[in-house]
């Protein structure tokens, strides 16, 4: 029975302390989310024309902003990976991409939920919604592409290059669809008009809560990738030790 030659390396900081720090952070974000939710539902004034359903706006809009933050992280991770080839940037890239896709999905789902009671339609091919849909497809493709390449280094390099193409494409997508819509107008699902100051504060609060969730989720997902790497390495070392001892 071969023994492992390498001991399992400790993650930064003693396990107990990291665990409790993580717990505190999760509780803080949960608290923030609770406050934000309460504010959105009860503190913010009711919108005149749309009524209660408009409150979904406090989650619909920040989810887009959070998605953009996530995708910006992906772009930075992609560029950093190509420069230094450190696998950690690759882990960050895939984590942020998955979280970003989750936020875009939230946006794409809350949009129609908002639209239907107000305008009577589930979907409109307006500029923002259509761009969002393309954005969703782009980053889902990024994740699919990663799934279809086995070798870790090739996967990281290729998805990084694709990620850069996708990121550069986003402003072009938005602009082309927006300009198309100015020529062929359609109903717009949106937050037209100026914003009441209280509404503005609640909006920012909700965004802060979402950013908290974003950070937590990206970090968790990153940890999963790091663990996966460790498991692969240990498995390989175990196999090699087994080979060496049988060879002797």
């Amino acid at each position, binding site marked *: 029975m071969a023994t492992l030659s390498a001991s399992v390396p400790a993650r930064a900081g003693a396990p107990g302390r990291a665990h409790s720090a993580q717990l505190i952070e999760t509780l803080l974000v949960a608290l923030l989310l609770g406050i934000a939710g309460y504010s959105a539902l009860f503190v913010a004034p009711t919108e005149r024309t749309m009524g209660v359903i408009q409150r979904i706006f406090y989650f619909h809009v920040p989810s887009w902003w959070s998605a953009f933050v996530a995708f910006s992280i992906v772009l930075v991770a992609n560029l950093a990976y190509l420069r230094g*080839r450190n696998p950690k940037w690759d882990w960050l890239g895939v984590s942020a991409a998955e979280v970003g896709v989750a936020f875009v999905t939230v946006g794409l789902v809350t949009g129609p939920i908002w639209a239907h009671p107000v305008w009577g339609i589930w979907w409109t091919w307006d500029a923002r919604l259509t761009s969002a849909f393309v954005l969703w497809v782009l980053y889902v493709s990024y994740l699919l592409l990663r799934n279809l390449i086995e*070798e*870790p*280094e090739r996967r990281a390099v290729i998805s990084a290059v694709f990620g850069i193409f996708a990121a550069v494409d986003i402003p072009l997508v938005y602009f082309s669809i927006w300009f198309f819509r100015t020529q062929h107008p359609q109903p717009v699902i949106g937050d037209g008009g100026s914003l009441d100051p209280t509404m503005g504060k609640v909006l920012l609060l909700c965004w802060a809560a979402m950013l908290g969730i974003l950070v937590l989720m990206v970090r968790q997902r990153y940890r999963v990738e790091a663990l996966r790497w460790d498991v*692969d390495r240990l498995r*390989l070392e175990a196999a*090699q030790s087994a080979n060496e001892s049988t060879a002797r």
Partner: protein
Amino acid sequence: MAIAPPANSTRGVSIEFQNIEKRYGVRLALRGVSLRIDAGECVALVGANGSGKTTLIKIAALLVRPTSGRVSFWGSGSAHPLDDPLDVKRRIGMVAHHILLYDDLTAEENLELFAKLYGLDRPRERAVAALEPAGLISRRADPVRDFSRGMRQRLAIARALLPSPGLLLLDEPATGLDPAGQHWLGETLARIHQAGCTILMSTHGASEVHSIVTRAVRLAAGCLAEDSAPSGDPQRMLAAALAAEQGT
């Protein structure tokens, strides 16, 4: 019909691997390999399958980038290493696991293409001149797809020799060659070795080729396990490696 060889032709290139490490995901294909090969040496690289021979040769060919460590090249008689990768590639010829030729093009077209890519003058004449010693002149207008295995290997070797390289890298070059072909290979290698070319060759059998070897190096599990340089007797090591492989 004699064509003047290109400048910096078969004056040997020396190559040094400094602490080369190559990692594929968690798997270490090469670990801390340091090796210096002087101009004009003919080095046989031996080792079991998976010991890292092909990876090392590909790193020498600048096809694969090492994860850490460095590979440096010196032109003959020069104190400064070559710093332009294109300059290095110009002096390298490689015979790989695949034949590196286009099936759809004829033998002549293939060689002419590569002569042009290597910046050689009078590419067509050089292509024809290269076919002659390989015994392929009668098949010059046939697509490579129609060639037998032995002929394809001969053409691959002719392709490698086109730019009159200072460093010739060969990955099991005797594969697919019949005894006549192996004899031709041995003679060809002897000839260019005499002209000063450095040769690094991974090999399994074919003693025809071993007669010109000046040094043998053995890799095991990605590490440099044995070097015949101190003892100056490569043949003993080669014979031992051959026996070991035939035994398993």
